[in-house]
């Protein structure tokens, strides 16, 4: 709203954006589009500002693409009980997440489920079914 002098009274004007400690989620990822990937973990980076893991995803023709997934910082993950060994190279996983807006093979990870149905980074197993796979 504006005062008579034309100055803007500001409330929560930037509410669309800044939730991450590091950068605005909406600047990098498409929050309207949840996708699911199935693959094998090839690397885990327990680094700042975001811990990352990478998986090889095979499409119907057998071609393999490597995808890069972002999580919170190791400091945050550690305080919530996860460790750098929670996810290991070679794990077969399903990832639900939000893809990068610029088309890069990157995404923000929302949920990670092992082949036996256990949810990684979660204390209780879940039988939640992933969304339909959508390889690119």
């Amino acid at each position: 709203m504006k005062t008579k002098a034309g100055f803007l009274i500001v409330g929560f004007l930037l509410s669309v954006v800044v939730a991450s400690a590091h950068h605005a989620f909406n600047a990098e990822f498409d929050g309207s589009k949840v996708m699911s990937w199935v693959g094998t973990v090839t690397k885990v980076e327990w680094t700042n500002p975001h811990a990352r893991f990478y998986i090889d995803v095979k499409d119907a023709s057998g071609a393999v693409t490597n995808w890069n997934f972002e999580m919170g910082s190791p400091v945050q993950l550690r305080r919530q009980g996860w460790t750098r060994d929670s996810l290991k190279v070679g794990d077969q996983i399903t990832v639900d997440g939000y893809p990068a807006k610029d088309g890069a093979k990157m995404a923000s990870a929302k949920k990670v489920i092992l082949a036996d149905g256990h949810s990684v980074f979660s204390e209780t197993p879940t039988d939640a079914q992933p969304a339909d796979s959508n390889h690119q």
Partner: protein
Amino acid sequence: MRYKPGIISFVSFGKIAICTLLAACFAFPQSNGGSITGKVTDQDGAAVSGISIQAKDTSTGTIYKATSSGSGDYKFDALAAGSYQVSLPTLVVGAPPQNVVVQVGQALHLDLRARDASLNTLGEDRSFFAARVAPHPTPKGPAPRTPEGRPDLSGTWWAPRIVAREEVSVLPWAAAVIREWAANNAKDIPSARCLPSGVALLHYFGLNKLVQTPTLLVNIGEADVASSRQVFLDGRGHPKDMDPTWRGHSVGKWEGDTLIVDTNGFNGKSWIADTIPAVFPYTDKLHLTTRLRRPDLGHLEMEVTFDDPGTFTKSWTMKTVSDLAEGEEVQEIICTENNQDVEHLVGK
């Protein structure tokens, strides 16, 4: 605060629940008080657990609080008949309040959909953000004192939570900048490039470790950018002709049990992100007056007055409370070690 998380079974009422298009279902319970129950899900339909739900009686202003269970269910019971506004107060976007009317003895079913994917990253999900701003258990007792009889502010503290903030009035150029930031998804926030975001003495996101001596208060901040602040308590003033800096120059003096810190010499290059989700630009005229108090062992109060005639039409004040983080230590965060986001940030 009145709440009982749980599920109401409509079968127990022996009646058929009729749902409107707005997913509000009415049934007829046995008790005289009304109730509102439902489930909180995120935009993808998954249950959201541990989130705060608020029901405000719009005629009396009384606020009732509940917390969603592991399955996302929540319940307000024994509500007086009347109009209520039900909302998810800790979410910053995409969960508009729902207005409902509870009649005497009525059980109202209201599902809430949170539409904010930005609070859905592993390690940075809704429960993380809710826990960060929620009060933590703290030890009881009086604030420790120094040999000189001053309160000792030393300790490791959880991030400050805002308990009050005055309305902020900005000049037109600043309003235009804020609109530009919003339109561009805040892609240029300095922390995305591992530069300081925020100007207040206690960093708004991670832990703050205060170390107090008679002549110096040091804050070791756990932030995306390694953040240490010095507050000189030895009676000195600000240097003349300072080179402006990201965090300014701070001097402090005690008035009774309150430490009053004066900070000047800002370079105007960061964002005032201490008030997230509201963020503001500022100029090199920014001057902060910070009042720190430790009213008891477990709490640190910070009151910051922001004064910048180059940005704001009047000064404004924010009050925060930080809880003692017993058993915690500030961890190392070297933001530049693997910052892959910058080249993928997209504006409008």
